[in-house]
């Protein structure tokens, strides 16, 4: 096998599983170490630079980092990365003096942002310090988009939201709230140098064809619209018996909000098996904890309306089977339909993009799915001065993806406005720092704690169900935060092998607690993977391969469950193993 090319920064980036999995590539181990040191401001700023909304994401992130966390492969549960982010946000002092300064002399370029959600705010944050003038248009009364109108306050309190949104707005965004943009053409005519569209996926899917939909309309609500109505206090009550259709996070927000507005018998009904639900496992748990049963394998048949009033719904019981193409299909079990009585129904069966305000003759092309045709890297549309990011760009995903895309769009807008090639994008900023302090002393805490994942305290159910504004999760206190932070394996501290000085004494092989270091005869990758002391079966994890050593063998390290404990380096008599911290900061607008 060819020796590993560690000169390519992506090799070590890949080893930092959490950071690699994060769409915004937030340097997770770096800020977790700062939290364990009690340096909350520094930890917060690392987050703020990378993901813009640490306090918000510390509560509602989809956490792509946690399933990727290496700790989850050596024990039961990964590091509670998301909740640690919140620890930094909750415990920081004022960080206002650390925010980037915005030049008073502008660069003469004007940008319009349509939609005031996370993607647009990210673009504003990235472009304002470079001297751009930014105008924001949103049909709501305040900025935040999805995270304001559809995430309930018991998960994300308004103060946290306002604080982080205002950091950006206060940098000098000209806001046009309660302003629905009716025509892209009109916007183009205003002479902006670039237009950014971050309008999200604003339309909840309905079930218009289902019998009884029209007749029962007064009792049937589209979930995201209903959540927004609750936020603006247009809706304050709901019937006692509520059915929520859908298995995503919006369904979980709907059912838990319904519990707070008078819903006593609230049920979530999903078409497919429980295992295929899109909602995050922890959100399903929270719903179950609030006495909301999840009923799976039930396909809605009709709304039953009697005398103009919705009385319930009928469902067909199904099982998931694989068809001849290997695709899962729901087949009726043939049993009698199930009738579930209810007073109101909330539909949370998915979201759709909609661009009725974009004129067809402008040259902005759409895909068959109704999404704008974009360059996947630059986010530029077929109308060269128009850029998209967030749910509006590639369909509904999540907040952290919207932020990551916002950064990319901001880079593109900057390059575009400066007349440069959009393909010529700035590189990430990377560095390697030695961690050796002295004789077996390291700059990082190399000892691996056995502590299990800390449980988070929640407010009493009786209390929280009475007040929809009361945040349910209390977050970690400083002590728990420290304990949890110490569980991090410091995967950014890389093990570097120097073949030239190795005397093949086997000391590293013998000390490695997880048997990841091997010295053996060379071979092809699949052959090598099978011949390691413990075969390397996790193909998503790389093998670190050295050039041939004096005995003709090579060193092969399986990165899979390396604890980054530094023992190989401590036990090496010739310092042929080094522990170097690898930092990787994704490029942002203005970087060279």
């Amino acid at each position, binding site marked *: 096998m060819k020796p590993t090319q560690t000169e390519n920064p992506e090799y070590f980036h890949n080893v930092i599983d959490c950071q690699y999995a994060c769409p915004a590539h937030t340097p997770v181990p770096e800020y977790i170490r700062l939290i364990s040191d009690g340096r909350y401001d520094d930890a917060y700023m690392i987050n703020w630079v990378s993901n813009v909304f640490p306090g918000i994401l510390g509560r509602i992130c989809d956490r792509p980092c946690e399933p990727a966390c290496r700790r989850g492969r050596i024990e039961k549960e990964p590091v509670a990365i998301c909740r640690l982010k919140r620890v930094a946000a909750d415990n920081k002092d004022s960080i206002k003096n650390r925010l980037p300064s915005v030049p008073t002399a502008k660069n003469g370029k004007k940008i319009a942002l349509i939609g005031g959600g996370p993607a647009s705010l990210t673009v504003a944050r990235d472009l304002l310090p470079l001297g751009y003038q930014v105008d924001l248009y949103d049909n709501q009364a305040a900025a935040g988009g999805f995270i304001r109108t559809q995430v309930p306050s018991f998960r994300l309190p308004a103060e946290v939201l306002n604080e982080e949104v205002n950091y950006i707005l206060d940098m000098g965004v000209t806001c046009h709230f309660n302003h629905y943009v009716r025509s892209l053409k009109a916007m183009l005519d205003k002479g902006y140098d670039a237009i950014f569209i971050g309008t999200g996926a604003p339309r909840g899917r309905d079930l218009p064809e289902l019998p009884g939909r029209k007749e029962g309309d007064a009792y049937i609500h589209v979930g995201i619209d209903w959540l927004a109505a609750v936020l603006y206090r247009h809706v304050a009550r709901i019937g006692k018996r509520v059915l929520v259709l859908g298995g995503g996070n919006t369904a979980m927000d709907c059912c838990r909000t319904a519990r707070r507005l008078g819903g006593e018998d609230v049920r979530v009904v999903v078409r497919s098996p429980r295992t295929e639900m899109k909602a995050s496992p922890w959100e399903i748990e929270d719903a179950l904890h609030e006495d909301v049963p999840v009923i799976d394998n039930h396909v809605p048949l009709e709304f039953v309306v009697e005398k103009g009033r919705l009385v319930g719904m009928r469902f067909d019981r199904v099982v998931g089977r694989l068809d001849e193409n290997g695709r899962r299909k729901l087949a009726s079990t043939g049993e009698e339909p199930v009738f579930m009585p209810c007073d109101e129904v909330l539909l949370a069966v998915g979201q759709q993009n909609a661009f009725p305000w974009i004129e067809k003759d402008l040259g902005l092309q759409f895909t068959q799915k109704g999404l704008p045709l974009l360059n996947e890297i630059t986010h530029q549309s077929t109308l060269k001065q128009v850029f998209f990011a967030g749910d509006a760009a590639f369909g509904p995903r999540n907040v952290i993806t919207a932020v990551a895309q916002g950064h990319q769009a901001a880079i593109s807008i900057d390059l575009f406005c400066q007349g440069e090639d959009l393909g010529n994008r700035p590189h990430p900023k990377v560095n390697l720092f030695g961690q050796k302090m002295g004789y077996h002393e390291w700059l990082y805490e190399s000892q691996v704690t056995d502590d299990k994942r800390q449980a988070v305290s929640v407010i009493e159910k009786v209390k929280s169900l009475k007040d929809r504004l009361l945040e349910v999760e209390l977050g970690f206190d400083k002590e728990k935060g420290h304990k949890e932070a110490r569980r991090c394996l410091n995967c950014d501290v890389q093990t570097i092998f120097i073949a030239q000085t190795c005397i093949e004494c086997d000391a590293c092989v013998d000390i490695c*607690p997880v048997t990841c270091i091997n010295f053996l005869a060379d071979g092809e990758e699949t052959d090598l993977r099978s011949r390691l002391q413990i075969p390397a079966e996790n193909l998503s994890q790389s093998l670190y391969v050295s050039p041939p050593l004096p005995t003709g063998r090579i060193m092969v390290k399986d990165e899979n*469950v390396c604890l980054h404990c530094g023992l190989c380096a401590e036990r090496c008599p010739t310092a042929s193993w080094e522990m170097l911290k690898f930092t990787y900061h994704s490029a942002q607008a203005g970087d060279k």
Partner: protein
Amino acid sequence: MTFTRPSFRHPSQPTNSLGYSRSDYEGTISTLCAGCGHDSISNAIIQACFEIPVEPHKVVKMSGIGCSSKTPAYYLGKSHGFNSVHGRMPSIATGANMANRDLIYLGVSGDGDTASIGMGQFIHVLRRDLNMTYVVMNNGCYGLTKGQDSATADKGSKSKKGAPNPFESIDLCELAIQLGAGFVGRGFSGDKQQLVPLLKAAMSHEGIAFLDVISPCVTFNNTSGSTKSYQYVRDHIEATGTFDFIPLQQEILTQYEEGTTQAVTMHDGSVIYLHKNANSPDVTNRRKSMDILEAEKEKGRLLTGILFLDPESSDTHEILATSLSPLNTLTETELCPGSAALQKINERLR
């Protein structure tokens, strides 16, 4: 010094037929110098015990004094152990073995502990053919007292201090063969591929099995002029041949060609298949084994592998015709059978 080792192990570490995983054979973290050959031997012992497999509580690890004799702390943490007086490990092992013949005895010693202060004990335990595995971690110097030349340092070899050793060296393997050990082998700490099967075979041998393992002292004796450095050993190593050790329980799957492979059945029914190099002698012949050792030494080569093997050798208990039940299980009833029994014995002597 390294103080702690994480408690996590690879989530897919295998278990052996007794249901133990390799970590069940581990000890505490080593306090020896980084890169010490002894740590490699400790790990080879862990691996061998895991692979055979032995039950940890059936093993007794014995040692004397020295860097090597510290190592029992670093392996088999769930086994019995006795860290004895300098050079006196063989006596303690003999006593223990006499008291309970049902356990597996694994003694480790160093070149100082064996070839200097313990020489008198060493040669007699060989003579008596005590049922144990005797491992010498041989680094050619006194590492614990700053690296003075030991009795196994080759004449002319230079340690860190730089002065060539003026004295003749003792070849422990030759001595062991001469004194009647039934299993004699030599290994190198830097070659676990050979060392682990060597240990497995030695531990299944009945009677004394002696292993001389060259184990470089990285701190004092890993210099360019030393004949016990990693570099020198790698450059001068020669093997009597490779071999496969097939424990009794295991099915024999490989077919061996006749002529080049010799099968030797051990006391417990295990089989060792020796794959001999061209021109290599029959290792079951004591005189030829001595010859080849001398011949290779003349050529400046270090011969490793199984050097001599006598599957028919007996052990102390057999020689002395002791009770088949371990002595420590005999109760007063067996030991004092009463005056009638005494009467009978006396009758026989009249």
